[in-house]
């Protein structure tokens, strides 16, 4: 294995009943890399991401995080998940907790930090995502979509993850809030946070990705640097996805 590989995915398969969601997916992520996954609806992007922290159990295939095989059945998955930041499309904040407690709860309950240590880390993470401190004691239902997603990112970030996974982080947002969230993801990626981002925002994908993975029907049909894909797409579908979105850009 290449020494700076942080995530190694080998031949993942997943079926829901008879429908095939993943059909042999393999790829590697290097430390500090930003991977973007694109593909049409139902191509298996969410399933792939959820397999990476075993929220969905793959039927077949192996995943290494660093040099630990997380698909090893003897592994304590809770210990692994705390190192993998996951950002959901629908935020999934804890409704009954304030912004601060949403970010602190993992630190206190999972990492067993003392309250004041957890508080300090939570405040750090919240300022990283640029959340105004007047919002710290608000509840999720009192926030805008953009603020919610930034809290969700802070909640994941506070755990000091080795990798961040984003599943369509801006798809549930009203258009005016999309940029503030992309801005945060961009900043983290620039600062060397290893990231896998599933998105339909092709312009953002092209801008931020070290490598883009194109999925279709549970397979990776093409992958490469944004410039490569743009100038010389091998697959007709890649071309379609990229061009259609460029049109909507203009």
């Amino acid at each position, binding site marked *: 294995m290449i020494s700076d590989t942080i995530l190694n995915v080998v031949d993942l398969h997943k079926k829901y009943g008879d429908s095939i969601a993943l059909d042999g997916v393999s790829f590697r992520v290097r430390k500090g890399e930003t991977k973007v996954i694109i593909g049409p609806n139902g191509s298996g992007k969410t399933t792939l991401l959820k397999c990476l922290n075993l929220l969905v159990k793959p039927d077949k295939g192996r995943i290494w995080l660093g040099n630990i095989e997380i698909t090893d059945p003897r592994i304590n998955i809770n210990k692994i*998940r*705390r190192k993998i930041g996951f950002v*959901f499309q629908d935020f999934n904040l804890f409704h009954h907790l304030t912004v601060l407690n949403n970010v602190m709860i993992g630190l206190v309950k999972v990492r067993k930090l003392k309250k004041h240590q957890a508080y300090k880390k939570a405040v750090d993470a919240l300022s990283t995502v640029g959340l105004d401190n007047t919002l710290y004691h608000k509840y999720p239902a009192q926030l805008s979509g953009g603020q919610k997603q930034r809290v969700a990112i802070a909640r994941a970030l506070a755990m000091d993850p080795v990798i961040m996974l984003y599943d369509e982080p801006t798809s549930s947002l009203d258009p005016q809030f999309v940029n503030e969230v992309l801005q945060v993801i961009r900043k983290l990626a620039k600062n060397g946070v290893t990231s896998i981002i599933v998105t339909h925002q092709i312009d953002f994908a092209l801008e931020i990705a070290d490598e883009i993975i194109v999925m279709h029907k549970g397979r990776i049909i093409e992958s490469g640097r944004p410039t490569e894909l743009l100038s010389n797409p091998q697959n007709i579908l890649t071309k379609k996805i990229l061009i259609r979105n460029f049109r909507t850009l203009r």
Partner: protein
Amino acid sequence: MNYISLIEYLPYIFEGLLWSLALVLGGLGIGFTIGLPIGTMITYSDKYTKFILNVYIWIFRSTPLIVLLFLFYWGVFPNIGLKLSPLITSIIVLGLRSGAYQSEIFRGALESIDEGQILAAYSLGMSKIQAIISITIPQALRISIPSLSNEYAILLKDSAICFTIGVLEVLTRARIVSIATGIALIPYLIAGIILMMMTYIGLKFFHTVYKKTVIPGLIEGI
């Protein structure tokens, strides 16, 4: 008719208040202690555990209270060598029965919490038990308050049935006083007023807790 002796009997009726309170609060407390874990297990466990717990719920919900009281007072407890007073027996039976109803209340509340929050808890590295205790139960408890307040009012009415095994709660005493004094209506009226007050105070209490625990900004789905 002897109105003077009625006045003498007033403290006796009021003492029944303590017995009624013991029945209702005891029943509610035992019911909660049983209902929350069972409701939680039914929501999150495998189908075999679910089946067994549902049998318990079914038995206690479908059997009339009076039958349960007789069964436990003359059947179950004596047979296992327990000599329990009518009051203690009644509290336990009310508790077991309320537990069945409360399981259903908590199950419904837990099921109404979106799965996304549990996934988010897992993604932070929480175990299933941690996620249930820190994330879903606190929210379910709050959602349950209106139903619990309803359960309190029902228990209060049901507690009167415990007179059948000789518990001296408010209504039983009213009946005794009515016979002793020959006054038909007034003792029952007094008992009625006492029970109404208990209902009012209890419901007020639940309402206050509900208001105090409101989650800012959240629009209740139910």
